[in-house]
Every structure is written in C-alpha cells, then in structure tokens.
C-alpha cells in the first residue's frame, strides 16, 4: 500500500539519501539520522560511528535502523542533547524549581527520569564545588501512579512492581529523590468513603470503551496534579515522546477535538495548577527504548488491559504507518506543531530577580507567539481542554446542577451518559476536585473579565453570584 511516488514531498516514500537531506531542514524533531550530511554514505562500509568516526557503531548491519550506525555515546549524546535543548529553551527547570517526574515504568519516562537525574547530579556537583553556593539545586521528586485497583491486579504483583520502582529511584542518588506511590483512587478525598469502590462505580457508569480509557487518563493527571501540589512541586515532568504525541494528534482529530489539540502537543502546558513540561517531545519511542536497552536502564512492565476502541485503533494505525515510513510520526507531530498554540503553552515570564537573567533571557527568546492577547478560554471540567465557540454554543451545560461544569462535546459524547437523569448520577461519582478546579478557573476568568471592564462599571452591588 505504499505510495508509489518518489515524487511525493511528504516523506511517504523516499530514498535514504533524500530523507537525510530533507530532514536537515527540521529542527531536531527527527531521529538522529537527520543530522548527518550526505557525504557519510562513504562511511557506511567502514564500520565506524557515522558521527564521531572513532567508535564502533551500535550495529554494523542495518538491524537497528539508522540509529544503529552510531556509537552508543553519540546516540545517547544526541538524545540527551534534545532533552537539554527542550529544557533550556523553554525554561522548564529553573534552579529554584521543584520538579515532579511522572514515572510510569515504561521506557520513555525511564529515560526522562535518567536525564533529569543527570542534570540533577550535575547541578549538585556544581553546587558543591562552588564556593559561595549562589546557585541552588532544583528539587526532584518521582511520582508513580498505581492503577492496580482499576485492572484488578493481585496485590503481590502490585507489591513487586512497586518494589521495582522503589529500587530504581533509590539507585538514582545522590542527590536523593522522594518517591510518591500514588494510588489512582487518591483523586477522591479520603473522607468521602472508599475511593476504590467509587472509582469502580464511576468507570462502570461509562459505557463507551474509549470514554472509559480517556476518563482514566484525565484522572491520572488529576492524581499527579494533586500529589505535586500537596508536596510543594511547581513543575510536573512527563516523558511523552513523538510517538505518543503523534497518536494523540490522530485520536484527538478523530474525536472532534481539533480546536484543543494544539494545547496538548507543545513543550509546555501551563493551564494546569502545576505546569506540565514535556522535554522528550522530540524523541522517538524507538530511540528511547533502544537507549534503555543499551544503557541497561531498568523499566517496569505494568499489567494493563490493552487499549481497545479508538485509542487502540489509532495506535495500530500509527505503528503501521511508521513501519511504512520511519519519519511518519515526526511528520504528524510537525503538522500539529503548525497549529496555533494557546497562551498557556509557555512558562509564565519570570519577573523575579532571583531567577538568573540568563534563564529569563532564554525564555523570552523561545516563547511561542500565540494569538491570544487576552486569556478568554473556558475549559472542559473533565478533560480540561479549551472549549471552542461551537462547543460553548451547543452546550446543554447550563441546565446541569453544578454551574461551573461546562463540558466539551467529546466528553459529552463518550463519557457522559445520554439521558439526563443518569448524568446527575455520574456527577456524584466524579471526584469533587474536578468541580472545584472548574469553579476556580471560572472565577479566575470571571475576575479577569471584570478587571477589563472595571472602569465602566457603575453600581457597587450588581453582584449576581
């Protein structure tokens, strides 16, 4: 089924050389093969790393694909370089920050953890070496969300998994990192009864399989936000890579979420209470898995049911496309990168003079330009995605019993039940935090609006709330 045209500019079929030439245009989003000039074809037979031409390549035949023709050091260096570039140019981690790394056990978040640790330990060494101790070391914590209650995993297996995670984090010291094992049912406050029972009831009340999976993802983020906020972290770091983002681009498109899609695919997502950063955004899953294998980075296999429904379909589709053309995931992400991001897709510019001038300058230079001069977004209370005008106009939310609970059309279709009486029942099963967050966001929005028109308001008491 491959495209028959060598003509096609869109990377669906190219010779290796054309691919390498083409991909030089792109800034770091493609795999390592991109950064080599075409003259290296001469070296393909000489059995040396294509970049440093000194060490042995990972594999001398074409087994591992393009990446395998580099030595381990250059390969690792390239990935770490992408990570560092992302962190620096987006001011993701300042010396005064406390970063919570979300660790799922998989290869992407394992590499994220490893790279953060390398930055962390270097910062610590610099701090120790520096006489006046002027540059503080940022804090690092690790959060593991335990979803075993959802998948009914036997407790001995869960204990083993948690034990493995603990071991990994313990070995990433000095400097030491606090580990938080976060059961997914912790999204419910502890005084509201058994979280596990409520969670099970909630998931059972969602009839659409895709809706169920997505709701679980939203709850996972809620749990991470909660643990970050309660423990004094001001950054949440995820290991999301190109491959995952490419799948998200397609599945969001397929679910009608084209308006909110740009919010999810940037380096920085600051619409949350604790801003979320994605430093591995330019790395392919394949590269990250290979690095784990080469460097012996231990990962933890989680027991989860396979994704069914739309998410599973998109995932197999992207795998198929990627096999047909290894640049496909990058192209998909690049397309989404050309959509206008939102105003919250950058770290707020820091006026604090305590933060290094260099950091502030870097941040100004790389902050994406968005069109929003005024933050006028409303957000879906379940998935927190910005609502389009048509979503807002078509909503039946105003009749719902919680006034702040506006919902996007996608969540309305796949998560909320069709008949209105069941909707209220589902609301009682959702974590209180979702409604609190929505109310808080809307209050912010409302007071920001009020500020704008303050000078034209006459009466003191036109208070309608």
């Amino acid at each position: 089924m491959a495209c028959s045209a060598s003509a096609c500019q869109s990377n669906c079929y190219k010779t290796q050389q054309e691919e390498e030439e083409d991909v030089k245009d792109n800034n770091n989003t493609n795999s390592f093969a991109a950064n080599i000039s075409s003259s290296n074809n001469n070296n393909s037979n000489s059995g040396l790393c294509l970049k440093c031409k000194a060490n042995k390549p990972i594999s001398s035949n074409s087994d591992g694909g393009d990446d395998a023709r580099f030595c381990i050091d250059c390969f690792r260096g390239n990935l770490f370089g992408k990570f560092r570039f992302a962190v620096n140019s987006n001011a993701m981690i300042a010396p005064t920050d406390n970063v919570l790394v979300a660790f799922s056990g998989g290869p992407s978040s394992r590499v994220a953890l490893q790279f953060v640790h390398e930055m962390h330990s270097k910062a610590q060494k610099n701090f120790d070496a520096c006489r006046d101790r002027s540059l503080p070391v940022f804090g690092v914590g690790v959060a593991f969300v335990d979803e075993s209650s959802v998948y009914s995993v036997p407790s001995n297996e869960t204990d083993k998994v948690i034990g493995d995670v603990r071991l990994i984090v313990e070995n990433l010291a000095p400097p030491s990192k606090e580990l938080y094992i976060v059961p997914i049912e912790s999204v419910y406050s502890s005084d509201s009864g058994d979280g596990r029972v409520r969670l099970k009831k909630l998931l059972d009340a969602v009839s659409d399989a895709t809706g169920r999976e997505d709701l679980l993802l939203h709850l996972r983020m809620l749990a991470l936000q909660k643990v970050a906020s309660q423990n004094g972290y001001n950054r949440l770091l995820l290991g999301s890579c190109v491959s995952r983002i490419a799948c998200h681009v397609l599945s969001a498109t397929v679910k009608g979420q084209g308006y909110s899609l740009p919010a999810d695919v940037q380096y920085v997502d600051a619409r949350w209470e604790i801003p979320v950063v994605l430093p591995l955004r330019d790395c392919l899953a394949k590269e990250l898995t290979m690095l784990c294998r080469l460097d012996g980075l231990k990962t933890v296999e989680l027991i989860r049911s396979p994704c069914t429904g739309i998410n599973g379909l998109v995932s197999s589709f992207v795998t198929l496309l990627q096999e047909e053309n290894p640049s496909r995931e990058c192209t998909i992400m690049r397309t989404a990168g050309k959509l206008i991001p939102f105003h919250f897709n950058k770290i707020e510019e820091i006026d604090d003079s305590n933060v290094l001038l260099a950091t502030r300058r870097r941040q100004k230079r790389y902050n994406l330009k968005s069109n929003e001069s005024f933050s006028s977004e409303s957000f879906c209370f379940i998935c927190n995605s910005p609502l389009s005008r048509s979503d807002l106009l078509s909503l039946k939310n105003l009749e719902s019993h919680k006034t702040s609970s506006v919902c996007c059309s996608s969540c309305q279709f796949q998560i909320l039940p069709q008949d209105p009486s069941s909707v209220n029942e589902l609301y009682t099963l959702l974590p209180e935090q979702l409604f609190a967050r929505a109310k808080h966001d809307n209050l912010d929005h409302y007071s920001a609006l009020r500020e704008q028109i303050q000078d034209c308001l006459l009466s003191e008491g036109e208070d309608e709330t």
Partner: protein
Amino acid sequence: MEESADGKAKKAGARLCCLCHQKKAVLKRPKTLEQICRECFYEVFEEEIHQVIVENQLFKPGERIALGASGGKDSTVLAYVLSELNRRHNYGLDLFLLSVDEGITGYRDDSLETVKRNEIQYGLPLKIVSYKDLYGWTMDEIVKMIGLKNNCTFCGVFRRQALDRGAALLKVDKLATGHNADDIAETVLLNILRGDIARLSRCTSIVTGEDGPIPRCKPFKYTYEKEIVMYAYFKRLDYFSTECIYSPNAYRGFAREFIKDLERIRPRAILDIIKSGENFRISTSTKMPEQGTCERCGYISSQKWCKACVLLEGLNRGLPKLGIGRTRGLNNDDKKDTKKTNGTKSIESKQCGTLDF
C-alpha cells in the same frame, strides 16, 4: 448506547421505523444507527442535503451548475438528488453533467456509457472533455511512458484543469462535485500525515476556488459514503462501481482502511474528523503559497508554470520525471534554496494519489 438498543431490536423481531412509527424498519442508518423505513431514509437523506445547501448558501437562483459526473455512485446520486431538490425546492438552477475522459480503456469508456445513460435518465445535458483533446495524451499513453508510479499525480492534475476547462466551455457559474464525508475525512487525515498544512487549512471548506476560474462546492460534505451507496441501492440508480485500474498503490488507501475501521467502532467519528479539520487554526507565520498565473497557459498557479504545463512538457520532451520530485524542472531555474520548507514547495509537489482540492 447504540449497542444496547440494537440488541433489544433484534430480540423484538419486527420493529417499527423510529421516525414515522408506522412502517416497518428495513435498514439501519449508517450515520446514526437509527432503524428506519425506506421512505423515511429517502426523506432524511434528501432533507439533510437540502439543509446543507441552504445553510451554506451554495447556489443562487438562475445559476448554471456543472455536476462532475464520472458515472460512479457519488456523481450519479448527486445528479439524481440535485435534480430532485432543484425541482422540489425551486432552486431555479440549470444543471449540466460534465464528464472527463482520461482515456483509460476498460475503465473510463465503460463508466462513460453510464454517464450517457444518466444524461437520458435525468434529462441533463452532458459535456465530455477528454485528456486527448486537451493535452494530446491519454492516461493509457502516459502510463505506458512513465509506468505505474506517479500516474495518479498526472491524472489528478490534468483532471482539475479539465474540469475547469469543461466548465468554462459550458459557461457555468459553479461546479459541484460528489465528494462525500468519507472523502473529506480521508483528506484531512492524509494532509496531517503528510504535513501539508496549506491543504489542511483549505480541505474542509465546502466551497473552494472562489477567487479562481470556477468556484467548486461539495454538497455531500456531510453525507456518508455508506448512505450514498444505500440510497443508490434502494432507488436502483444506474452507476458504475469499479476502482480505477491504475490506482492500487495510492497512499489514500491507508487512510481509507483506517476510516472504515473507525466507522465500525464509532460512526460519528467521520463527522468529528471534519469538525476537527474545520477547527484547526493554522499559524500565520507558516508561509503559504501565493497565487499567480501560469506563463504558458494562463491558468491559476503558484509557480511560473502551472503543474499541468510542467508535466506536459515532461511528457512531450520524453522526460517523465519533470515536475515530479524536488528542485528539478522548469520552476527552479533561479536556484531556490533547497532547504526552505515554505509552502511554495508543498504546492508544487504534494500531488500524490489524490484529487487536488
């Protein structure tokens, strides 16, 4: 959701149409999975198209409209439904059938017979334009020269111009094509997969080319392919249903398979893809192609020569790769920087396997 309603219906046996509650339900509507009778299906199908036409102001009274007619199901149903709606709602339109003969033996000559029958059946005057007359080449001859790679590129580029030329000969105000919701959803996906941001911003528009020679519209933008087939089947419309013999390798096939699987899980996803496409906001800093005219034939073009002229030049000079691939050919004499990734390159080269929108 719909699954449980289905199950109940099967157990209940004979079920009444859920729209009129009078006749027996004989089909499940692909778009909504409602179980309805034939007459209600005709009604909702036709009424929805009428609403699309009215809400988007596709036509004005007194206009002459050419209908792209390939003899396939989409164009046959388009001709049938538009004639019917024109009569029923007094659109006041003059309708014509416009057909393109690419010169593919065993495929196009058969489907053209169907169109000729449609001319008689629907009473709509027919005009056929052929590649041989317009360009001096048939697709058979082109394929003989260039093989089975890139042939869709030639055909797509040539067909666009052929339709415009035919429309000009008929002196019509607009061209209506039978592109359905599935086609548009596939195109949105394809453009995402291939990074074609320029096309992505245009492909969900129901009317395109208003600033070009002939504006085109797609009345079937929200109509499911399955429903078109169903309509043609129940109404026993005469159409030709074979895949083009030169197209088995088109990249669009990937997207089509995916959408078929998607429709099985969630039928409304097709409309959701179109909705997403409509809601994509493209960054204005992305360079888009600028519109000009071809120096050789005067047709609309973002380059010095339009793509059809470039391809033709290649064919006539025995250079089959002219205009195929990057940075070669007539448009790049002035040593453009090959590393630029602006939109001008994308217009020139992203033609593979699809109808140009």
